[in-house]
């Protein structure tokens, strides 16, 4: 059954959209990440223009993170103050991101910037995850537990001014790295159509030393706030959010996420991280191949001033 997408101006199979939403939702529920980094490329590979894909996925991320945030709020594992700091700075980053996105689209370099950024981020993060997971698995087989790295104080982060107390996370740290982190994730989210959870979670744990129990709920809160703003901004300035496309992805995504979460709980941590790492790495590789391989068609056409 084909569904005509009014903003993308093309029909797509409804079950394909629901399926893509469900598959990515399943993975995101299983690994505890947003899944935007998978969904946006999937839509682009299936023929939707990168402009519409990036903007519409942001609405799907809002739906997914809403149900997540509500669950974590019930468990009271969200640092609201830290989340607020991250969200406000994320909104500033997102506003800049939406503007840069429009400017790049105008000069015809949006696609290559999106592809390069995917290669850089997914490649780096994927590689780190795979290496870490393989080491953990090998250590377990040998029976020698890895030395638990007690996060020591990073001198340069500790030395920064404007310190703020975050009670829930039991932290008294400078607001500057918090704002910088929030803003960069917001910027990337708007530009690439990703929630940024897969960058935010390790950054909060390793850079800011936020307790692991608090990290996921707080990250989801930041994702929700920033992505709601991004959806609004993409609609208001670029008019590229397809609500029908978004809705089909949301419905598939939230259902898939519930089942993914159940499977995720039964898998071992290292195995899960290895699988996620490989997945992230392969999406990055796909973009890299497209960038480096000589294209069949050197020319491309688009409407003046966008589309």
């Amino acid at each position, binding site marked *: 059954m084909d569904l005509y997408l009014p903003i993308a101006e093309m029909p797509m199979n409804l079950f394909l959209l629901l399926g893509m939403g469900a598959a990515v939702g399943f993975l995101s529920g299983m690994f505890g990440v947003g899944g935007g980094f998978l969904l946006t490329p999937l839509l682009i590979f299936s023929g939707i223009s990168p402009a519409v894909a990036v903007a519409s996925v942001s609405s799907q991320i809002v739906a997914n993170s809403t149900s997540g945030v509500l669950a974590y709020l019930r468990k009271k594992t969200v640092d609201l103050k830290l989340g607020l700091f991250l969200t406000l700075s994320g909104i500033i980053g997102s506003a800049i991101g939406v503007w840069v996105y429009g400017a790049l689209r105008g000069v015809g370099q949006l696609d290559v910037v999106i592809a390069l950024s995917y290669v850089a981020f997914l490649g780096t993060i994927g590689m780190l995850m795979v290496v870490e997971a393989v080491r953990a698995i090998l250590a377990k087989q040998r029976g020698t537990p890895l030395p638990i790295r007690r996060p020591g104080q990073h001198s340069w982060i500790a030395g920064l001014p404007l310190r703020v107390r975050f009670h829930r996370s039991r932290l008294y740290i400078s607001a500057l790295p918090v704002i910088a982190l929030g803003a960069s994730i917001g910027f990337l989210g708007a530009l690439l159509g990703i929630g940024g959870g897969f960058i935010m979670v390790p950054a909060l744990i390793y850079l800011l030393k936020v307790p692991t129990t608090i990290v996921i709920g707080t990250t989801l809160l930041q994702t929700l706030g920033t992505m709601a703003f991004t*959806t609004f901004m993409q609609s208001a300035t670029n008019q590229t959010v397809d*609500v029908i496309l978004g809705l089909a992805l949301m419905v598939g995504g939230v259902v898939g*996420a519930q089942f993914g979460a159940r499977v995720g709980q039964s898998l071992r941590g290292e195995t899960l991280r290895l699988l996620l790492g490989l997945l992230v790495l392969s999406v990055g590789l796909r973009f890299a191949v497209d960038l480096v391989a000589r294209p069949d068609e050197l*020319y491309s056409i688009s*409407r003046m001033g966008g589309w």
Partner: protein
Amino acid sequence: MIVRALLAAAILAVVSPRLHAETLVTALSTERVYIESNFTGSGVVIFGTVERDRQTVARPEPYEIVVTLTGPLRSMVARRKERVAGIWINRESSELPRVPSFLAIATTAPMVDVAGNRVRAGQGLGFDMLPTRGLPDALPPIRTEYDAAFLRLMQRQGLFTLNEGSVEFLSSQLFRAPIELPANVPIGWYTATVYLFSGGVLLAKTTQDFSILKGGFEQTITNLAHREPALYGLATVVVACLTGWLAGVAFRKD
């Protein structure tokens, strides 16, 4: 005597096409095509008759019909990728001002047999004669690599089609030209132009407008997105939050 005969012939040549040439009467099967949520493509049929009266000269050559369906004009940019530091990125570009976003051509016979290059160039008829830099000229247009890429890519996307021989005569004067509208057909005003040729000479031409519109619901959404973008954005966010909340409630384990 010779002078008088020549004069008569000249008068006849000037007057006769107007008095005795064929006229074309054409009609479209539909004036509006609506794109609804289940739209996967559609079609339009152009009907016509070649009207003759008793004084119309007998043609030694058969009638040939060319039908073009031209979509809304848009300004396009063609870009060329080049290898820079190992990766392929867009470098040079060229603007194509006001080119059709859709062009379907249907004929009764191969285009080259219907009319010569000069005649077609004057009308901008055929992909090879389509003006990409302004109005049709008496000379065939000069193509850059970018123009060629534009024509090639539009054909690959199914937006430019040529169906030689798809126009059929149902009788000696009545013809029909079915034209397919693909799923990715652009929205807007279309012009159907019918050309009547015989022996490589253009005898008559008609044009008719029709439009492709989004259906009620699709149009409402598009209007909202373009005219009230802030409201549209807000509504999308609310829908997303509601979907997430509903899912959380539905799957809550307790």
